[in-house]
């Protein structure tokens, strides 16, 4: 595809439900990032993959958050037992692996609302 694709675009979950958010990066992009963006704030780092290896998960807020990229392409961010504070836009971005010299290409995000 031409860009990073995320689905679903919107997700409403009842507190306590599990959710799975999908990211389809640009073909050939080795690096994949998940960010969380609260209303009116900048994106905050959650986790980072290089191919299928999760190199950094220091931003995941709790052990309820889990991300995977098993074949080095599509990635899934899973949130278990959702809480109201999980409500945010979840952005996925991909880039070429170039030691930080390549731009991040963002998807349109998944807006998660926990009721």
């Amino acid at each position, binding site marked *: 595809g031409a860009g*990073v694709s995320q689905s679903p675009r919107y997700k409403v979950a009842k507190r306590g439900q599990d959710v799975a958010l999908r990211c389809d990066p640009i073909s050939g992009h080795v*690096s994949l*990032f998940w960010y969380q963006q609260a209303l009116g704030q900048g994106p905050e780092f959650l986790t980072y993959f290089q191919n299928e290896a999760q190199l950094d998960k220091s931003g995941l807020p709790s052990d309820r958050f889990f991300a995977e990229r098993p074949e080095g392409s599509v990635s899934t961010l899973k949130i278990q037992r959702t809480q109201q504070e999980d409500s945010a836009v979840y*952005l996925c971005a991909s880039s070429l*692996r170039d*030691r*930080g010299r*390549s731009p*991040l290409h963002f998807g*349109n995000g998944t807006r998660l609302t926990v009721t």
Partner: protein
Amino acid sequence: QQPVQSPQAVILREGEDAVINCSSSKALYSVHWYRQKHGEAPVFLMILLKGGEQKGHDKISASFNEKKQQSSLYLTASQLSYSGTYFCGTPDTFGNEKLTFGTGTRLTIIP
């Protein structure tokens, strides 16, 4: 610690110029700039690297002062399409691909 941007918000008339600043308390190895319109994805504008190398759009200019740990984005002859929130992003260490984004600057251009 995230970079601090200034101003937080600015309103300009079409055709006016704007400067957006990004300041870090840590060493800057490179600076990325992105623009995000409401409800949309952040879009890449520019990367500034140590040594003066820049990669980005021709109509946007920026500066990178490694000693002062600051970067500035210059928008000249602003157009309505420039409206949005601007974020700078910086890596924690040299060559690190993970970015920490700044506090954001909301720019509104009015006719």
